[in-house]
């Protein structure tokens, strides 16, 4: 973290603070005001986009801890979101559990499933682990379809309205506010997990796992912990996503979503909490742009053109970032900041 000159810490509290400068406080205040006034001016589709971005940010934070910091690349994140989503859906539709409790249980269940599919990570890494998580996604979605009595198979499950601690959520605006509060909380939690003993152990494992083990990092427990935390976030996001549509279905969590989640990390900057947020916004906005261009493209190319464009644009973005800015938007932003701090030198 680079600080402007003249900023220094006089106490441990100051040293540990997340926000160090006045400029940043002002920036965050403006950002908060902006985020929480979105429902006042935004159209319906923009509000949906903003809510989905919030939910995706929560899932991406989990993947950032798992992949960006612990170096365990998971291409099954969408599958773990599916576990969370279906757990929440089953609990709230079959047992009338309030949503907040269902979401917490969903997160825990997804975390435990994550540990189970994370077990191979003790023996394999790199490409082999990617393949194991790909297998995890397909096995999870197949199992969900098999337990028809519980999950309704391909028909999906309908959810009642969300019941949170202080009442029932009825409008889209209220849901947006709830998701935003949870997104901010998740961001703070994710940022702080990375500053704990476990977070430092994750980075040590990513940089060189053999060296980390020799230095006393227990690979077994920390790799599984990374999987647990990563899938905890995914499960919670899955529950939020299912509740947002009041409907749970396999189609909601396609395999390519895990690919885009990884792409968001690359575009934003692997390992950086703020980068994760930039990446999610960049990819989601690109996809929305492709969908918006759909009607005009439909006459030019073909009816499905928007679907194709929604795959091509983010794909190209990932390739371009890999080639020209492998550390993502976070690094570009850092460079810009350094430039104007040193200006005119």
């Amino acid at each position: 973290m680079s600080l402007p000159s003249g900023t220094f810490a006089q106490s441990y509290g100051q040293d540990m603070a997340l926000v160090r400068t006045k400029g940043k406080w002002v920036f965050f205040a403006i950002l908060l005001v902006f985020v929480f006034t979105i429902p006042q001016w935004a159209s319906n589709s923009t509000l949906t986009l903003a809510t989905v971005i919030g939910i995706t940010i929560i899932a991406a934070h989990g993947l950032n801890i798992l992949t960006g910091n612990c170096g365990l690349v998971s291409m099954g994140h969408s599958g773990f979101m599916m576990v969370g989503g279906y757990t929440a859906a089953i609990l709230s539709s079959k047992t009338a559990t309030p949503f907040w409790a269902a979401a917490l249980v969903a997160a825990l269940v997804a975390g435990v499933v994550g540990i189970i599919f994370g077990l191979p990570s003790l023996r394999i890494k790199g490409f082999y682990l990617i393949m194991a998580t790909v297998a995890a996604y397909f096995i999870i979605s197949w199992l969900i379809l098999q337990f028809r009595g519980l999950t309704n198979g391909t028909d999906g499950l309908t959810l009642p309205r969300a019941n949170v601690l202080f009442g029932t959520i009825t409008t889209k605006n209220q849901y947006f506010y709830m998701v935003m509060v949870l997104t901010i909380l998740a961001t703070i939690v994710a940022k702080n997990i990375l500053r704990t003993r476990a977070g430092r152990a994750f980075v040590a494992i990513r940089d060189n796992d053999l060296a980390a083990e020799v230095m006393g990092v227990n690979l077994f427990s920390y790799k599984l912990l990374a999987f647990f935390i990563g899938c905890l976030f995914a499960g919670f996001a899955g529950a939020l996503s299912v509740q947002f549509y009041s409907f749970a279905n396999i189609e909601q969590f396609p395999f390519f979503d895990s690919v885009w989640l990884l792409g968001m990390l690359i575009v934003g900057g692997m390992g950086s909490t703020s980068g994760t947020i930039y990446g999610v916004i960049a990819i989601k906005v690109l996809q929305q742009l492709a969908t918006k261009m759909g009607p005009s493209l439909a006459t030019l190319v073909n009816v499905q053109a928007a679907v194709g464009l929604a795959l091509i644009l983010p794909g190209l973005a990932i390739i371009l970032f890999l080639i020209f800015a492998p550390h993502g938007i976070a690094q570009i932003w850092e460079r810009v900041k350094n430039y104007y701090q040193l200006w005119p030198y």
Partner: protein
Amino acid sequence: MTYFFQLVVTGLSLGMMYALIGIGFVIIFKCSQAFNIASGQIVMIGGYLAYTFLISYALPLWASIIAAIAVAIVLGLVIERLAVRPLLGQPVLSVVMMTIALAGVLDGVAIMGWGGEYLTYHKSLPNISLSIGSVSVPPSSLLGLIVSVIVVAILMFVFRFTKIGLAMRATAEDEQVTRSLGIKATTVYALVWVIACVVGVSGGVLLGGVSGVSPPLSDIGLKALAVVILGGLDSIGGAIVAGIILGILENLASGYLDPLMPSGGGLANVFPFIVMLLVLVIKPHGLFGLKRIERV
């Protein structure tokens, strides 16, 4: 018993498809240590190309195959030059992520270019069939078998007996030494991608002829990854053996176990992944793969 043999025979044809796609993957990995997750998408593009040349332009079979291969060569060169070469020297995972993004782009191109429709052209392929006793071998199996055998024979010949094959094997062994001996590694990489694309597209022409082309066809690329994991990432022979094993096992499993499943099964879609997970846990380097020892 006839049922069993029928399942084995259809499994064999599926397995040869897997093997063909797996070979494309293995060649790239062997020579440049890069993982190509977009192999399924290349297969799908091959199917669409065959449709375009055979049906839309109504070319004869041989001309369509030559045209499809020509496009495949261009595709391989473009991918290598624009996307893979700038990433030379980057960590392995960047190349994996690049091919994943490439998979998205190729999927998108197929949807933009061909409307993502389900297209068939099986009538344009030669109709040869064979029956042994009560078991009939479908034409697709025969074609798949013949094409795979030809492709594997050509590749084996190129690898063993030609100068460029020697260069490829040398690059696979140690890129830096190869460069210092005056072999252009970049040329080898370009050639490797071209070969992989040609193999993938010819697989796609066949597969599209058997089952029709649509974007979900590219899912076979993910299943073929199970084949390469089982066979060992850097073994061409392993890809063939594992392809046949998995193809037959998958067919047997869905033939015998699907009726026992509570909701219809669909075991064929998940079986390769279960095998893949088991192989990864028990024997990560596969049947014939080179075991690498890691040091700090």
